[in-house]
């Protein structure tokens, strides 16, 4: 169900995300002080290549990592296998990536509020 390539992808994305998660936790702890607002979040992230890079990498890594992780769970606990299992993994990965990319774009370079 998991071969060497999927295993390595899972571990490499994990190592990539470890510092990103720490950064994300730190940002959260900092950002929630005094409440959250859309304007506050956007004032930090909008127009920033650095945040685009940070959360863009995060979005790609989490899409791969989540898709492979859910693959293992639906196989072992749900009995999904063969082509259906591969299709499931790709759909999850692609959906997570699309949602992630959309969200990262929304808070960095999209023309919306306050730009």
């Amino acid at each position, binding site marked *: 169900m998991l071969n060497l390539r999927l295993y390595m992808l899972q571990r490499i994305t*994990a190592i990539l995300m*470890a510092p990103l*998660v720490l950064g994300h936790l730190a940002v959260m702890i900092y950002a929630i002080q005094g409440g959250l607002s*859309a304007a506050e*979040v956007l004032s930090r992230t909008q127009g920033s290549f650095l945040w685009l890079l940070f959360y863009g990498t995060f979005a790609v890594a989490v899409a791969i990592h989540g898709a492979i992780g859910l693959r293992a769970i639906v196989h072992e606990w749900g009995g999904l296998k063969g082509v259906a299992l591969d299709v499931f993994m790709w759909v999850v990965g692609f959906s*997570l990536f699309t949602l992630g990319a959309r969200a990262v*774009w929304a808070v960095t370079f999209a023309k*919306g509020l*306050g730009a």
Partner: protein
Amino acid sequence: MKAASGITSRAHPLWLAYILHRLSGLALALFLPLHLWVLALAMTDPERLDGFLNLTEAGAVKLAEFGLVFLLAVHMFGGLRLMAMEWLPWSTSQKTLAASAAAISFLISLLFFLKAI
């Protein structure tokens, strides 16, 4: 020790570390689409985003956030534990690692909680 047919006794630290890692990962993967969708509202519907962000001040939601931070920390330290176990040539300290992973995660989430209130 009650015997249930076909169920192995699983009460040992590494199995508990495994199930914690799996369930935290599953929960994060299920939460993530919601999180990303809400963020994308910045582009499509900024007022609604503010509505969601205001929700984070409510008590129950705060507790859920604490849970999410805990899950993220527990999954990350659990994963680091796993990779250390697989790739570094230490073999007897795994149980200690499992325990300290949980402890550090708890500390981080506690810090978050204290800052949040």
